[in-house]
């Protein structure tokens, strides 16, 4: 029996061809919609999988502030003993690796991650791992597959490993050694194994950065020996799993001892000598006590009610009065009034010392002996922060008197222990701390029999002058602090040893582990959060697929309506036989929905393939091949469900619209086969549309014009695209008005031109449908052109000083910092020394290499270096568009203050500049911006907008080295710069924010044109132990732009697919038009039109829509990107022309095929409406 259900089923079966077309349309819509969501799933899933792989089951990591000896001084157990879960100490360092052979030519790799591990974290996937003594000190190395492949070495080979040598003195302090040989350490290791391809250790990586890690594994103690000189187990990382970061932090706190904080305690015992007692000196292993540590020491002492005196010791250049001078005096800054055993340091009859006062030591042979009180004493000293040449400063003090031996002044232990300076074997001539205290200069100023030399031989580094603590702190403060010790007076009744033991325990309780860098980072959680991506790719792709989805659904609507049109008589019959309109509507909707459900289900399957296609395109276009290794399809049920439901809902809407139009046609008309309600073409909100057109133009132009003055990039982008969109709407409104005009020039004439005129007038036959077609085409063209206009390449002005490169044609980065810039002075000499060694024959003495012709040629080539801009680096997440992870802790660069105040360099996009000077050179903002607790930064516009989701003027917060949040304010953005993965601040701000990061790890270099490659090669040879890699700035920027290009191309692909659907929609419109106009077309045949002429007529009306749609879209897009173009972007006209030409050709071909049916229209039945 026939029921409504069986009727629907029979209809579906009978009209299967047209239903199949509708089904395919829905399939496309579902595939695109779900596919876009799956792209998001895939990105997130791949990154998540990568995190899982790269973390090697690690849950938390403690990045230790300095290499920490694992062995505890109290119980001789290890730091990691007793920590919850599994904790492995690792000495991880950046380094470089070179295969055996000629140092100048042997294969070399920088950016190596050297993992010093013991058997707790040795590579488990290595079959031969058990044969390696990971707890010993053999010079064995295991290479990851990538490293072995890049270096071309196999097991048994020898490689030279270079890492940073740890310094007992901060490299940037005036007493530190900074030459390449001083800061690096190299040693040959035997390659004992190479990790298999599948080994997870190949991908071990603790940062959410896109670059594939270049891992090598060496025994922990062997690496400790290489970098510290001692083979004691030492770690820079604690890797943990099986316990939370909070549990680990709590347990770690109990295991820490003062040595871990870089502190040591010395017992200075006077008793045996002067019966004046003694004190305990708390000192830093790295010479300078950070201010917060000084506070902790003072606080601990206060709690015990013990006396504590912070002390500053500094080696000056000269103390003088007129021509009388003392070379290299050691200056002490302290509380001069302290009671014994910590003082006093006052001459007789002097009870206090002002901040401009000085007290001198009277010693035999001093040229400054015998001066009256009140004499002006000049102090010359080197600025406490030295990188490169030392800066000499001067200060003047008033002499208050003299101290004499014996007494508190006779205390060489005021000076903290510095190897080679204070120890028993110390020799003044071997201080050799260039450039502050070079050996040659010392010898010149202090000959053998010089009283200064004799004083040193007897009294070592005993201070020769005393200042107030405040004065010393003022002069000798650096980013690390100023105090070199805090002296603690033992309480009554306690020996020095008891005091030390007791204070050690108390002090450690006052030190804040987190603030000193002892905190476990829940790295798994953090990286998993970052793996959600810098951008929600699902939404991004969905956004760019919107048009495609809408086009597909329009197509569904058109196809369904076309199918219904063919069944108009059937619908008319149902209505005529008593079916209500709503019942017919429900019947048709049920039929359509069943088709939609099947189509959506099929679409889910196609979505999987579509997702794979998009990923393949993305991978193919992505400049970094590494992405291939982990970007894989991933799916979530949620995406499928959302895609399915959303498609059905949207299809239902499209179907409802289609049905609504048909059931409005009166049944008799339907029975005659008519499918449209005949209108007089005069109705419609003409006035409203006119207003829309005018408002669209005015508001659109206004928005675009004002967009150029808006700093917020999101709002700016929104302004441009809204403006463009309004212009598009205005253009389409104008088209609508034209189509609904009642007065036109009479179509008359002869031949094809007259037929063409009739054709374009025919476009107005069905204004709604024509508008829809034009809209689809215009929107697709708008998307294609707008997206294409954002495609960039380094422009012609790129290498100019105000271009994207700032005039620098090379960019170099190294793993081990370089402390002396190599453009001139000691840094250049150092580089040349390394080159001399590299180009020397193998048998030559490395300390005295000969000058070979190759070296001399290299020297000449180095002359091509015109400018070097050294940059400090605080390592962090790559914040460039090449990083798919979310960059929560971007890299920070410090740029020299002197550079910022000079001429304007690089190309700026926007800034918060207010003064003329700042506007002329926005770099100045880094010097002039002065807000407490804010660090002004400059970054690339794309980085700010897309990765950090910030605009100029916004702030960005991330933790500093001590775990406390730092606030960065974006004061300007750059465009086309090589700085796409970092924030840039001034040197001085950098030093304040990241005092522990010294030296330069990035360089921008300007060389004579054409010498880039030669200079890059020489720098890589000379600084290979620093792991330097150099590349052209153009290449680097082009790589970033290629990433943007990959996105743009993918989005254009979506736009292109949308356009394809638009063109298919046009074809459907043509077919439907032909169907509706069979009688009309037959009449034209009857009155003598040739079939080809009729085809031409129909083609013209649709080509008109195609061209009009494209032109409207292109024009609106060009207007909306005009400010962007005015900002320096170039429109790739050729690409656009090719693309639009292709669209026209494809559109035309589709129309020719669609109109081919006209040739076969049977005239007589059509005339009879049969």
């Amino acid at each position, binding site marked *: 029996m026939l029921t409504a259900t069986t009727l629907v089923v029979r209809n579906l079966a009978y009209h299967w061809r047209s239903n199949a077309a509708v089904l395919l349309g829905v399939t496309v819509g579902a595939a695109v919609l779900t596919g876009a969501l799956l792209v998001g799933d895939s990105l997130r899933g791949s990154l998540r999988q990568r995190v899982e792989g790269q973390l090697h089951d690690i849950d938390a990591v403690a990045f230790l502030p300095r290499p920490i000896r694992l062995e505890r001084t109290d119980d001789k157990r290890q730091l990691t003993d007793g920590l919850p879960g599994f904790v492995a100490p690792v000495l991880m360092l950046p380094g470089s690796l070179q295969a055996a052979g000629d140092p100048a030519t042997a294969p070399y790799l920088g950016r190596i991650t050297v993992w010093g591990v013991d058997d707790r974290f040795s590579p488990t996937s290595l079959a031969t791992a058990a044969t390696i003594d990971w707890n010993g000190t053999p010079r064995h190395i295991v290479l990851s597959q990538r490293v072995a492949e890049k270096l071309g070495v196999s097991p048994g080979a020898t490689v030279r490993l270079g890492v940073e040598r740890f310094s007992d003195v901060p490299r940037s302090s005036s007493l530190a050694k900074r030459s390449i040989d001083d800061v690096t350490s190299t040693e040959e290791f035997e390659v004992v194994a190479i990790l298999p391809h599948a080994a997870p250790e190949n991908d071990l990586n603790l940062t959410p950065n896109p670059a594939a890690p270049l891992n090598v594994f060496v025994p922990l103690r062997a690496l400790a020996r290489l970098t510290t000189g001692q083979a004691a187990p030492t770690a820079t990382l604690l890797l943990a799993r099986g316990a939370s970061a909070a549990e680990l932090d709590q347990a770690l706190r109990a295991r820490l001892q003062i040595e871990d904080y870089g502190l040591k305690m010395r017992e200075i015992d006077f008793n045996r000598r002067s019966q004046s007692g003694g004190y305990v000196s708390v000192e830093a292993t790295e010479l300078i006590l950070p201010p917060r540590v000084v506070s902790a020491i003072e606080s601990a002492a206060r709690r015990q009610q013990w006396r504590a005196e912070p002390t500053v010791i500094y080696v000056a250049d000269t103390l003088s009065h007129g021509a009388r001078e003392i070379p290299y005096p050691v200056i002490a800054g302290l509380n001069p009034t302290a009671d014994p055993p910590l003082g006093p340091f006052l001459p007789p009859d002097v009870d206090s010392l002002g901040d401009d006062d000085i007290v001198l030591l009277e010693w035999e042979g001093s040229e400054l002996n015998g001066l009256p009180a009140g004499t002006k004493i000049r102090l010359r000293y080197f600025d406490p922060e030295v990188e490169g040449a030392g800066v000499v400063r001067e200060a003047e003090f008033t002499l208050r008197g003299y101290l004499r031996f014996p007494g508190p002044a006779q205390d060489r232990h005021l000076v903290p222990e510095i190897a080679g300076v204070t120890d028993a074997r110390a020799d003044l001539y071997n201080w050799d701390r260039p450039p502050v205290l070079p050996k040659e200069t010392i010898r010149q100023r202090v000959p053998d029999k010089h009283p200064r030399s004799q004083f040193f031989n007897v009294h070592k580094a005993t201070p020769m002058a005393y200042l107030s603590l405040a004065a010393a702190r003022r002069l000798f403060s650096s980013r690390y602090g100023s105090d070199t010790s805090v002296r603690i007076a033992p309480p009554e009744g306690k020996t020095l040893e008891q005091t030390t033991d007791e204070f050690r325990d108390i002090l450690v309780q006052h030190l804040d582990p987190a603030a000193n860098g002892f905190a476990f980072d829940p790295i798994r959680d953090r990286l998993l959060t970052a793996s959600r991506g810098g951008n929600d790719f699902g939404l991004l792709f969905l956004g760019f697929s919107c048009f495609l989805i809408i086009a597909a659904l329009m197509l569904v609507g058109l196809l369904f309506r076309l199918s219904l049109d063919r069944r108009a008589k059937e619908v008319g019959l149902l209505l005529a036989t008593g079916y209500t309109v709503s019942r017919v509507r429900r019947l048709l909707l049920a039929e359509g929905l069943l088709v939609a459900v099947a189509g959506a289900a099929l679409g889910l399957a196609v979505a999987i393939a579509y997702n794979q296609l998009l990923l393949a395109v993305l991978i193919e276009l992505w400049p970094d091949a590494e992405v291939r290794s982990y970007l894989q399809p991933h799916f979530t049920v949620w995406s499928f469900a959302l895609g399915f439901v959303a498609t059905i809902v949207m299809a239902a809407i499209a179907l409802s619209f289609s049905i609504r139009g048909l059931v409005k046609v009166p049944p008799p008309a339907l029975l005659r086969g008519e499918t449209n309600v005949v209108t007089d073409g005069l109705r419609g909100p003409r006035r409203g549309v006119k207003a829309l057109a005018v408002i669209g133009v005015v508001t659109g132009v206004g928005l675009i014009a004002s967009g150029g003055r808006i700093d917020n990039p999101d709002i700016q982008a929104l302004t441009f695209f809204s403006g463009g969109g309004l212009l598009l709407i205005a253009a389409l409104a104008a088209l609508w008005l034209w189509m609904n005009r*009642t007065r036109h020039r009479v*179509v008359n004439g002869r031949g094809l031109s007259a037929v063409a005129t009739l054709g374009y*007038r025919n476009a107005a*036959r069905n204004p709604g449908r024509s508008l829809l077609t034009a809209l689809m085409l215009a929107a697709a063209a708008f998307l294609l052109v707008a997206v294409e206009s954002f495609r960039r390449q380094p422009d012609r002005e790129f290498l100019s000083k105000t271009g994207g490169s700032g005039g620098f044609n090379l960019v170099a980065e190294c793993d081990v910092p370089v402390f002396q810039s190599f453009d001139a002075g000691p840094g250049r000499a150092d580089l040349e020394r390394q080159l001399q060694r590299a180009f020397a024959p193998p048998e030559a003495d490395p300390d005295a290499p000969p000058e070979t012709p190759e070296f001399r040629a290299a020297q000449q080539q180095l002359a091509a270096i015109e400018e070097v801009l050294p940059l400090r680096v605080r390592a962090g997440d790559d914040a460039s568009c090449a990083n798919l992870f979310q960059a929560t802790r971007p890299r920070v660069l410090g740029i020299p203050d002197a550079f910022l105040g000079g001429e304007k360099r690089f190309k700026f996009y926007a800034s918060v500049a207010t003064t003329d000077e700042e506007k002329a050179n926005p770099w100045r903002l880094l010097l002039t911006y002065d807000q407490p607790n804010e660090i002004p930064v400059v970054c690339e516009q794309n980085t700010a907008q897309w990765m950090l989701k910030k605009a100029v003027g916004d702030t960005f917060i991330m933790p500093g080295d001590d775990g406390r949040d730092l606030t960065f304010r974006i004061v300007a953005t750059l465009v086309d710069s090589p700085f796409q993965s970092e924030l840039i601040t001034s040197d001085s701000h950098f030093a304040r924010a990241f005092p522990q990061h010294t030296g330069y790890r990035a360089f921008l270099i300007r060389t004579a044109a054409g010498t880039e490659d030669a200079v890059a090669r020489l720098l890589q040879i000379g600084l290979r132990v620093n792991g330097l890699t150099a590349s052209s700035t153009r290449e680097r920027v082009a790589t970033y732009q290629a990433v943007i290009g990959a996105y743009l191309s993918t989005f254009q692909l979506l736009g292109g697919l949308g356009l394809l659907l638009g063109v298919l929609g046009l074809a459907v419109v043509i077919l439907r038009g032909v169907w509706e106009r069979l009688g009309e077309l037959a009449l034209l045949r*009857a*009155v003598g*039109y040739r079939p080809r002429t009729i085809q031409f007529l129909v083609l013209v009306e649709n080509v008109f829509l195609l061209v009009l749609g494209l032109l409207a879209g292109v024009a609106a897009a060009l207007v909306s990107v005009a400010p962007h173009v005015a900002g320096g972007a170039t429109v790739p006209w050729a690409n656009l022309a090719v693309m639009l030409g292709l669209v026209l050709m494809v559109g035309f071909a589709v129309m020719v095929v669609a109109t081919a049916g006209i040739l076969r229209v049977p005239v007589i039945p059509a005339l009879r409406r049969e």
Partner: protein
Amino acid sequence: MSLLVNQVTKEYPTRGPEPLVVLRGVNLQLQRGEAAAIMGPSGSGKSTLLHILGTLDRPTSGRVTLDGTDPFTLKEGELAAFRNARIGFIFQDHHLLPQCSILENVLIPTLVNRSTQARETEAYARNLLERVGLGSRLEHRPAELSGGERQRVAVARALVLKPTLLLADEPTGNLDRTNAQAVGELLLQLHEQERNVLIVVTHSADIARLFPRRYEMNDGILEPLT
């Protein structure tokens, strides 16, 4: 001698052994200025004859000539041009282009005619519309006209290129009696003015009575009515 139809037959192949014969040796001869009405029951073959006369269909055998030209010897393009220049059609459905004004609808056949001048044909089209009573509504769209008015536009369109042969297939089929009568009279009036050959196929005896010559088609055979 304007229209000569000689022994025209039309057969359609069928599933059976015998073809379906629609026209059986039709003969007809009409001079310029002559008008004829053809009547007959549905399926008798009158419309088929009209379509063959209008060159929209081909005879199975026999010959049709118009002013001595056998259109079925012409190539497709020439045939279209022939139809355009020499034959005017009026159908039961007016088949007007809704997007064009009535003047433009009348001008539609002229666009592909190369032997006339646009200005002249437009003037003539205006004249025709004037003559059919629509001179004041040149800019109107078909949707603004009544059924009878639309059919009058179709008449004007059929005459715009001054065809030798004017064919009307049930021109009043969709009209009420009054409008049908008016259109019939108009057709004859214009025919007399234009001196063409007019053949009207109709079921309406009232319309047929207006014509001096009347024929009846029965089972494919055309016979004059007395």
